[in-house]
């Protein structure tokens, strides 16, 4: 109940919200990629290595419905990235001490 949930809703090809989030989020926090933010989780993409590094001390998930809406399958994600639904999003928000939205 202490870590912060960070949400990122922009593609890394559009804005540097995720890069900023990765730079400023603390160990133990959870990063949830939503909306166009899910593009960052594609294996072999430009953010792959950054996400892998982040996952050494933080958790990374994507919002499943937003993934499917963009034709991305779960087996195409960077290894270690979790998939949650809206109920999982609510659960993460409830379990975290606060929610920081990177837009």
């Amino acid at each position: 109940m202490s870590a912060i949930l960070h949400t990122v809703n922009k593609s890394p090809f559009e804005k540097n919200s995720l890069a900023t989030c990765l730079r400023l989020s603390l160990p133990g926090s959870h990063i949830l990629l939503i909306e166009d933010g899910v593009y960052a989780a594609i294996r072999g993409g430009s953010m792959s290595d950054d996400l892998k590094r982040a996952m050494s001390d933080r958790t990374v998930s994507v919002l499943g419905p937003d993934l499917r809406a963009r034709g991305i399958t779960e087996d195409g994600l960077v290894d270690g990235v979790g998939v949650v639904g809206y109920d999982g999003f609510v659960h993460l928000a409830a379990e975290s001490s606060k929610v920081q939205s990177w837009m």
Partner: protein
Amino acid sequence: MKFAVVVNEGPYTHQASDTAFQFVKAALDGGHEVMRVFFYHDGVNNGTRLTTPPQDDRNIVNRWAELASQHELDLVVCVAAAQRRGIVDPDEQKRNSKDANNIADGFRISGLGQLIEAGIQADRLVSFGD
């Protein structure tokens, strides 16, 4: 748990209003309380009853209004942002001598203090926007 939600983006723009709606719905389905949804900046455009989206598209405004009536949600539109964008309720119509109003069912116009109060009273404040 008590949630409050901020929507900073208009309907049919990117996805913020949709994500906020799905989040609120999931929170209510999960047995949580949503004490307020605050519509700020272009988000106030979610509160006009005059939108007519195509019949095969989701009706974002009505969807909020229906959820509000089912769960007695408090949908608050920021007054300053609303005045700039022409979102008007009967009181504002009178106060600013306008010839019409357009606030949708379930929404009310109020001040930024409502957002501050939500931030204090809710356990979690979650923002959606652009």
